[in-house]
């Protein structure tokens, strides 16, 4: 058994950004099959256009079209492409000096092997058939065939591009700390495991690697009761992506008996408006055959029917 538990996790979000007038103009050009560069005060022709002049810092206003053909000024081989790169098979990244520009432009170059790429080679844009106003409207560069590269839908009369949506998804192997791993392994056996700080004797659940009060490593394992007190709570009325329970429902901090820190769980089996601070609750476990190394083994907490706890018993844990 490895020291810690781990699991794959994907963090994904679609970033929505406004483009502003300069990048908007560049991306509008891409959608329309045209490469828009900026002429800067030092005489350079730069693509993508910078939003502000590098010397005067004035907003960019002088735009010029450059050619979709050009010359490779540097390249590198990508033997193991990573997710979402322009090509899924090995390819090159290249800096390409487009004809009419004075500074090179970064994009992918589709060649079969590094033997087919050279500094100085002539290349052309391969346009994506369906273009939306994003840098990926250029599928990649490819060796030049002579003449202008074909473009399916040049110079549209659509509205200018004012925003982009960039999906970002990152895959991780997420690991728990050794203390968290002990907590999850305990849950798989129907136990709630915390740890006591050897210096200040506070009990933390889920356990953490060090006592947040004094920085001492927490080493002493403590098994906790399955009953506790609601210290504070909120009634969730707002629907959100991934929600599993229909609102309204209650998310609460439960201070387990014997613990010095509350942890977050659901309070069910009671109307939301009747949940209150000081309410005594107990863990409701899912059927044993559904258990894993997860906090979801505890389905929720429900009222025990005991009288409410006195405020003094949890006032230091709010």
């Amino acid at each position, binding site marked *: 058994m*490895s*020291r*810690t538990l781990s699991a794959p*996790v994907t*963090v994904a979000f679609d*970033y929505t*950004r406004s483009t502003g007038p300069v*990048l908007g103009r*560049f*991306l509008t050009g891409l959608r329309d099959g045209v490469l828009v560069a900026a002429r800067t005060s030092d005489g350079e022709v*730069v*693509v*993508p256009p*910078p939003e502000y002049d*590098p010397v005067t810092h004035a907003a960019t206003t002088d735009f010029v079209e450059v050619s979709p053909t050009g010359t490779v*000024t*540097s*390249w*590198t*081989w*990508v*033997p193991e492409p*990573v*997710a*979402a*790169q322009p090509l899924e098979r090995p390819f090159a*990244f290249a*800096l390409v000096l487009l004809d009419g520009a004075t*500074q*090179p*432009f*970064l*994009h992918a170059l589709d060649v079969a092997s*590094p033997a087919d790429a050279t*500094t100085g080679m002539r290349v052309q844009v391969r346009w994506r058939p369906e273009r939306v106003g994003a*840098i*990926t409207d250029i599928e990649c560069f490819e060796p030049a065939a002579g003449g202008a590269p074909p473009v399916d839908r040049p110079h549209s009369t659509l509205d200018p591009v004012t925003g*982009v949506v*960039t999906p*970002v998804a*990152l895959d*991780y*192997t*997420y*690991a*728990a*700390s*050794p*203390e*968290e791993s002990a907590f999850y392994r305990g849950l798989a056996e129907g136990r709630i495991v915390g740890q006591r700080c050897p210096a200040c004797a506070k009990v933390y659940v889920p356990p*953490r*690697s*060090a*006592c*947040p*009060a*004094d*920085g*001492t*490593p927490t080493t002493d394992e403590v098994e906790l009761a399955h009953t506790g007190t609601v210290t504070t709570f909120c009634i969730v009325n707002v629907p959100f992506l991934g929600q599993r329970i229909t609102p309204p429902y209650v998310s609460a901090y439960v201070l387990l008996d014997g613990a010095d820190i509350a942890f977050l769980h659901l309070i069910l089996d009671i109307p939301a408006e009747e949940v209150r601070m000081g309410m005594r609750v107990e863990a409701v476990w899912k059927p044993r055959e559904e258990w894993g190394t997860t906090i979801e083994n505890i389905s929720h907490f429900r009222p025990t029917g005991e009288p409410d706890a006195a405020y003094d018993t949890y006032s230091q844990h709010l």
Partner: protein
Amino acid sequence: MRDVAVVGFAQRQMQDFDGSPTCVELLVPLFAECYEQTGWSRRDIGFWCSGSSDYLAGRSFSFVQAVDAIGVIPPVNESHVEMDLAWAMYEAWLKIQTGEVDTALVYAFGKSSAGVLRRTLALQLDPYTMTPLWPDTVSLAGLQARAGIDAGLWDETAMAEVAHRSLTDAEKNEYAVRKGGSSVSALLSRPLYADPLRKHDCAPVTDGAAAIVLAAGDRAREVRDRPAWLTGISHHVDPMSMGTRDLTRSPSTARSGAALDLTGVDTAELHAPFSHQELVLRRELGLGDDVRVNPSGGALTSNPMFSAGGIRVGEAARRVWAGESDKALAHATSGPALQQNLVCTLEGQR
């Protein structure tokens, strides 16, 4: 200006950290080493500053959770930068300069192995025209390496010589992830990976953490007979886009170096995650052949994200403490292909 010195340094560098991305358990023993080196407790630390990034391991607010390793009763004076340890150290140095505090413990951590590092770092780039292409770190360095080769500024042999010297020096570094067992000709006979780079031209993916202790004036003299006084510190940034800068140069490094007095530097710890980048940095800083470069083995032999630049400062300081160096230079980098650079000098005599 107040006299400020590096008086403590602890580090861990490893291929894989078998623990959570908050790295709390990794930081606790590092802080213990810093307390042991200084004779202080956490209550002697006036300011805390950390460097890390949540993107590295996909866990939000990991730097907040890492504060557990400090212990915050009574509350501490604390800050965080989404940058390398070296920049966190710069913030702490500034804090001491304000006179508000006399001491600082600066730390950084990162679990690069949790994701695909060269891909994750694409999120550092321009989100409109670069990130959607996911140009990975190795590819961006490869474009830079070829630019220099084509310009006749270096060749594959010069790059292999850097790698060989680093691997040889790393044999004496207990934390190095890669070390030893090669020759220049053996390295050159290995296959190209991201042409023109071979794998040994690229820093290994490394997990780790490090901590540096700073102290002003007499607080520094309490700790060390020979504190490593920070006699100069400077950082600059180049454009992010790959097209609008000469990739064979690092103007921000040159400018940072020019702001300092580099006369008499005998040792340099350069943060060069790719072999050719050491050649760029040496040139921009005007380091002569008599300067001992990267005696630790450098970032080519282990490169924990968000710590590796600061580790250069710590390694330089260790040599000053030991009397092996009278004046050492430390350099840290961040961003694509040496975009952002920090240079500082550490001296045994103030």
